[in-house]
């Protein structure tokens, strides 16, 4: 598969996915009501902090060609994004983890997917900040 074909394929693969699952957000709001704590707010605050750390580390690991570290961070980010219902990022991270495990020689594809994750993370963070502002 050529690099161009992979790029178009990868975009198509994630296009249909939602950035975040509203049901998951509602679930967190409900838990907050049940225990009288601002659960969504606390989860989002922690996500803002950890996601910046993870993507920064992921980028650095990629620059150093440290693929096991990239896979480890993708695994961690997959868990974090799943917890908040960030569907697109969650699927991308799972794919990145598997891609490194199954075909570590496909460096171009790995780079492309990491860049896509970085880009999607920026978009998602903006949406989540907006959501947090509305919820407050």
């Amino acid at each position, binding site marked *: 598969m050529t690099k161009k074909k992979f790029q178009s394929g990868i975009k198509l693969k994630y296009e249909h996915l939602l950035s975040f699952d509203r049901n998951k957000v509602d*679930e967190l709001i409900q*838990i*907050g009501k*049940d*225990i009288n*704590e601002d*659960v969504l707010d*606390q*989860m989002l605050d*922690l*996500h803002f902090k*950890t996601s910046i750390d993870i993507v920064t580390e992921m980028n650095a690991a990629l620059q150093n060609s440290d693929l096991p570290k990239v896979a*480890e961070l993708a*695994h*961690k980010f*997959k*868990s*974090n994004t*799943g*917890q908040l219902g960030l569907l697109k990022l*969650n699927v991308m991270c799972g794919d990145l983890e598997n891609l490194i495990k199954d075909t570590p020689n496909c460096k171009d594809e790995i780079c492309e997917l990491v860049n896509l994750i970085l880009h999607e993370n920026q978009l998602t963070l903006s949406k989540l900040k907006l959501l947090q502002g509305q919820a407050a």
Partner: protein
Amino acid sequence: MSPINILVIDDNKNDLLMAKFVIMRMGYNPILLDNPSKAIETLQGSAVSVIVLDYDMPGMTGLDVLKKIKRNTTFAKIPIVMLTGNSSSDHVRNTVQQGAMDYIVKPIDPTIFETKINKIINAGLQHKKEDWIEFELDKATKAELKIFNYSRIISIGEVSLTLAANQDYPVGFTFFSDAQIFHDLEIKNPALKIEASTKTSDGYVIRCTMVGLSEVELKKVRLYQKLLVSKKAS
């Protein structure tokens, strides 16, 4: 009643926070640990009912921690539920073989988490209850003590009775009674637990609680008590 503590061990702070909220909603007390090497130290500091343990941790993995806990005789019986981002059969087989009771796939689904943890806690409470009954029965059987034939009942209440005996017995001691009164009431060998023992000039006055009587048996005792009171009054 002491709170039920649930220890969650996970290097991922986001997962720890989510687990904390779900455990709080269940009415239990979360103890959170992001450093698996301090697992035993943490267990020594608090009575933990269930451990939720992440499988994938850098350095000391969840399996390493699981093995370490299972090797420790003090904590080996605490049920462990593994948290895993991977539900492959190898993962599950590994955790179960090493003694984990169950596993939960990440991201944490509150409903699944609550159901699995509650099931384990309820099973634990049932075990405790069964253990207690077994312990009391064992104690009573080993004692082979049926003192009522050699003692005199002074009074009988709804769930307690007082008797006079020529011997002192330790408070908390449980025994089966074959006193005539229970034959008359058709209650077979009820278990009695000694609540208090007081020395008198001609022996001891012992106050006992009747343990494990059925509702029908309790009705019989209550009826007997009423008859006794009315007989005394007349």
